[in-house]
């Protein structure tokens, strides 16, 4: 246990000891072995905590506690294959582990020394079993910078962070760099904000550095509200120390001595691990006064968000920290001039801060080798929806959508056809087949009518109706609009109503025109990005799928068979085996027929299109049209 790190010598000693220990743990020195169990939220909801406890119990029971360590780690990223268990030094990755499998892993692998083949990942194409994580296609093209240490270090132990590159960057800036040099380095690296807009991080810091003030603040934006994005949470859960280190470096660079983490209350695990990390750093002296014996003092605090999407907007977030309603402020003045409690403030996203220690460690030049001309480094995407490999993916900027969806994501399940990928969440847009070979970075996505956003990437297949998806986003925006600007507050509601009309078959071509003109008003008349981009999901789907909108308003048809008012569920009398199962499952008794004698038939006037019959039919005799 590290007790104090008050000066450089103590830090060097701690890093040496911890690095040695950590390397020994992973390389299996002295015959020891390590069991790592995924403690990310996805795996936790699949009982990974019970798996961890079962390992601990069995290891204890079998008298292996001296030679085998068991602990949880952060998210592995490949969430659809979880819960994960990893064994070192062999580097064996077990997937979809259940509590009842633990005994097999303990007896066959830990005691017997044989790999439990049935729990290895099976490549869906070659059907071969893969033992090592790095040999799985999902991981092959990834490069982990933001997710550094996630799924490897124990996020509750400062010692493990110290053993895996932790605080080397902090030491470097405090001892060998002037604040301006740090800013210059980050500017040279080309790092842009990972929260959405992609503003150059170094320039933001420079603005704040130029302000004369006795107090400045650095705020970490962990209010990850974009539905379908969970990278900030996984980073905070997987290696909170790295984000704190990034925050401290930012603070040093522009002169802030206090930092606030604003994290969603819906992320209790992330909040808890962050709290533990801050406490442990305070205990040893890595947070507080005169860090490492220098003149630099820094304190970090946590504020929990209370479930308002708009608080991801930086000025709304500042109002929320100040205990007010989370409504955006007019800019200028920008937060770097007048931010939290009126003081110069930089608001940086979790992922942005997580990249900072790496940039300092390897240098701006090396960092800038990864990525495209205008977007450097890596970006974490939360790949979700209709894709085989759902999870967190960190790839170099410039990776194409095809690589992301098909090579890493493993393509679309069930042999269905790819239709669109939504990036940028409710502020973004859809990209289609023709965009698949575009290298993704901040600028190309904007040029294609979408945006990077926080990195949510939801894949949709032929069964998704784009009008329905647009309506879904508008419902979201509508309830999350803070109400300050009238065009956004009322306009989004009107847009939602128009879309509702269309999916109910009551829309006309006139409705489409009205939506476009209203969208322009909302864009122009809103104070913050939420309002300015509110209509993007509609505009983007209208542009990319005009024929689908026309089908809804002109022919009153939903080509994807999603919009209930526009579809009929029918039974094919030729295929019907007259078994009566559908009739028995129908909640509104809309299906009639005679068992064994007469084929069944659905009364369209009674049918509520719930799909219960569809799900129950064993002979595929029922379909939507």
């Amino acid at each position, binding site marked *: 246990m590290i007790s104090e790190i008050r000066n450089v010598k103590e830090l060097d000693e701690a890093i040496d000891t911890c690095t040695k220990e950590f390397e020994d743990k992973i390389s299996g020195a002295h015959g020891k072995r390590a069991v790592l169990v995924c403690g990310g939220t*996805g795996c936790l909801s699949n009982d990974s905590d019970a798996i961890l406890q079962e390992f601990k119990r069995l290891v204890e029971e079998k008298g292996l506690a001296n030679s085998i360590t068991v602990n949880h780690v952060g998210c592995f990223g490949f969430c659809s294959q979880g819960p994960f268990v990893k064994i070192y030094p062999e580097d064996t990755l077990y997937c979809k582990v259940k509590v009842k499998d633990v005994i097999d892993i303990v007896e066959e692998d830990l005691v017997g020394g044989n790999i439990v083949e049935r729990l290895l990942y099976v490549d869906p194409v070659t059907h071969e079993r893969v033992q090592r994580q790095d040999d799985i296609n999902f991981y092959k093209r990834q490069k982990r910078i933001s997710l550094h240490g996630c799924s490897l270090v124990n996020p509750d132990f400062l010692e493990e962070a110290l053993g895996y590159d932790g605080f080397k960057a902090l030491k470097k800036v405090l001892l060998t760099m002037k604040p301006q040099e740090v800013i210059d380095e980050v500017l040279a690296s080309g790092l842009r904000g990972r929260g959405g807009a992609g503003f150059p991080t170094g320039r933001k810091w420079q603005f704040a550095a130029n302000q004369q003030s006795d107090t400045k603040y650095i705020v970490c934006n962990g209010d990850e509200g974009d539905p379908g994005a969970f990278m900030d949470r996984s980073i905070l859960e997987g290696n909170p120390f790295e984000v704190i280190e990034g925050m401290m470096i930012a603070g040093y660079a522009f002169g802030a001595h206090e930092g606030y983490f604003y994290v969603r209350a819906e992320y209790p695990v992330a909040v808890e691990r962050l709290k533990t990390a801050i406490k442990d750093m305070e205990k040893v002296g890595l947070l507080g006064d005169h860090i490492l014996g220098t003149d630099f003092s820094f304190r970090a605090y946590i*504020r929990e968000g*209370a479930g308002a999407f708009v608080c991801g907007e930086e000025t709304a977030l500042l109002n929320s920290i100040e205990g007010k309603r989370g409504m955006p402020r007019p800019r200028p003045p920008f937060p770097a001039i007048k931010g939290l409690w009126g003081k110069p403030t930089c608001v940086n996203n979790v992922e942005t801060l997580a990249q900072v220690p790496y940039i300092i460690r390897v240098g701006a030049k090396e960092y800038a080798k990864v990525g495209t001309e205008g977007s450097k480094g890596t970006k974490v995407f939360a790949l979700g929806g209709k894709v085989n490999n759902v999870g967190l993916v960190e790839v170099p900027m410039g990776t194409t959508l095809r690589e992301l969806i098909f090579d890493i994501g493993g393509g679309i399940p069930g042999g269905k056809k790819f239709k669109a990928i939504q990036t940028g969440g409710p502020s973004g847009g859809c990209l289609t087949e023709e965009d698949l070979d575009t290298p993704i970075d901040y600028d190309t996505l904007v040029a294609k009518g979408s945006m990077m956003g926080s990195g949510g990437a939801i894949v949709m297949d032929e069964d998704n109706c784009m009008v329905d998806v647009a309506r879904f986003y508008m419902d979201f925006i509508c309830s999350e609009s803070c109400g300050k600007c009238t065009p956004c507050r009322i306009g989004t509601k009107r847009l939602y109503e128009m879309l509702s009309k269309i999916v109910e078959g009551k829309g006309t071509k006139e409705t489409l025109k009205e939506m476009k003109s209203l969208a322009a008003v909302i864009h122009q008349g809103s104070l913050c990005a939420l309002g300015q981009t509110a209509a993007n999901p509609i505009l983007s789907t209208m542009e990319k799928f005009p024929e689908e909108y026309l089908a809804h308003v002109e022919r009153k048809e939903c080509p994807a068979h999603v919009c209930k008012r526009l579809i009929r569920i029918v039974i094919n009398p030729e295929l019907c085996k007259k078994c009566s199962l559908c009739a028995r499952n129908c909640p509104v008794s809309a299906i009639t027929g005679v068992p064994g004698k007469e084929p069944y038939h659905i009364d369209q006037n009674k049918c509520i299109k719930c799909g219960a019959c569809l*799900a129950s039919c064993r002979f595929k005799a029922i379909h939507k049209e």
Partner: protein
Amino acid sequence: MPIRQDAKEKILAICESHKGEPSPLMVVLEEIQREFGYIPFDVQEMVANKLNVSVSDVYGVVTFYNFFSLNPKGKYVIGVCLGTACYVKNSQAVLDKFEEVLGIKSGETSEDGLFTIEALRCIGACALAPAVSINGKVYPMVAPSKVPSIIDEYRKLEEVA
């Protein structure tokens, strides 16, 4: 309804523990919400007096954020995720089914006080879509047909208790 004495003391203690912090209103309200499950008007008044802010400010904050509730919720809060990843995998049908089986709408509490249905915005369990969270326990890949058995699970718990 007057506030119980013990609740009053607890609320005052929460306010007291954040004394001197800059703008503690949100933090105080979050703790009260966690402790009691809702923040009725009387409590808002108390907090306003104690923190020396106007009642309208407190009410403004309580009604702005989804995390705060003005009314008590059911013993089991069923959160159906309507985040994008779940929505494209048909979580709306799951929500509809819960509403149908319990006979209440999203945001409402069943008459016996057992169940509240809520539509959630992404709980981050996108790999488990469509996901349902009941008092924090996440049910992965919930098909509408599984809904009745999930509710029965909790009804049985009640019978035993």
